[in-house]
């Protein structure tokens, strides 16, 4: 019983880290890439120059660190929980990313987009409430 409770607690903790670190990472990458400007690489030299700019942008590294935190939590939770459980549980991250985009990047999110995000969360949640195994056990 105790180990069952601990399993739930560590699953909740890992999914919470995923839901916060993933969106934060994307927002930081967005901020970093906006400072670089639209990608227009037409030659190998352009690609190298672009890569150098990407790798010397602080926000990109902060974003990568945040996404690595997300990835570590994700890998750990997948070692004991089902993919079909973990993926829907992170549905809330779409609301978090939109909120962080508004607060940290000053993006304007229209009511229609908020509605779309809410519908996506609902859809992801509905997918997650289906039985994880749809094939016959042989």
């Amino acid at each position, binding site marked *: 019983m105790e180990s069952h409770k601990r399993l739930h607690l560590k699953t909740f903790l890992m999914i919470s880290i995923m839901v916060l670190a993933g969106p934060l990472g994307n927002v930081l990458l967005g901020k970093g890439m906006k400072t670089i400007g639209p990608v227009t690489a037409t030659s190998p030299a352009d690609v190298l120059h672009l890569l150098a700019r990407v790798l010397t942008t602080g926000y990109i590294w902060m974003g990568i660190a945040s996404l690595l935190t997300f990835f570590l939590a994700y*890998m750990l939770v997948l070692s004991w929980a089902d*993919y079909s459980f973990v993926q829907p549980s992170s549905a809330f991250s779409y609301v978090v990313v939109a909120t962080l*985009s508004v607060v940290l990047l000053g993006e304007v999110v229209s009511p229609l987009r908020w509605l779309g995000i809410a519908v996506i969360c609902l859809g992801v949640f509905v997918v997650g409430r*289906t039985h994880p195994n749809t094939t016959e056990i042989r």
Partner: protein
Amino acid sequence: MREVIFFTLIVVAGTSGELCVSRAMKETGEVHDFRPLAILKVVLRAMRVKWTWIGVGLMTIGFFSLLGILSFENVSLVVPVTALSYVVGALGGKFFLGERVNRRRLLGIALVCVGVTLVVLGNR
């Protein structure tokens, strides 16, 4: 057109990569010890599984595509649209793994599609 290419790469490569990593971690085994050294050992063990590398390769393609599109599109548009990975995941499950997509799962996938459409329309 440029957006379509970036979104396709993010969704298809990203979802395939995640499935590969999921398989790799199941092969690696459940994590019980959360001390840094133990976690490092798990990571090193996972690195010996070929699915980890296939997954990481695919996720890298998805990642650089994400960086590319974030250079000219808003985060609040890009990330919700990548929810299309649920559609790709379900279609992949149906056609490559022989899974049955029941009505409830279809409803969820349809809701994701409607949501993504609203997010894109909300851009205008």
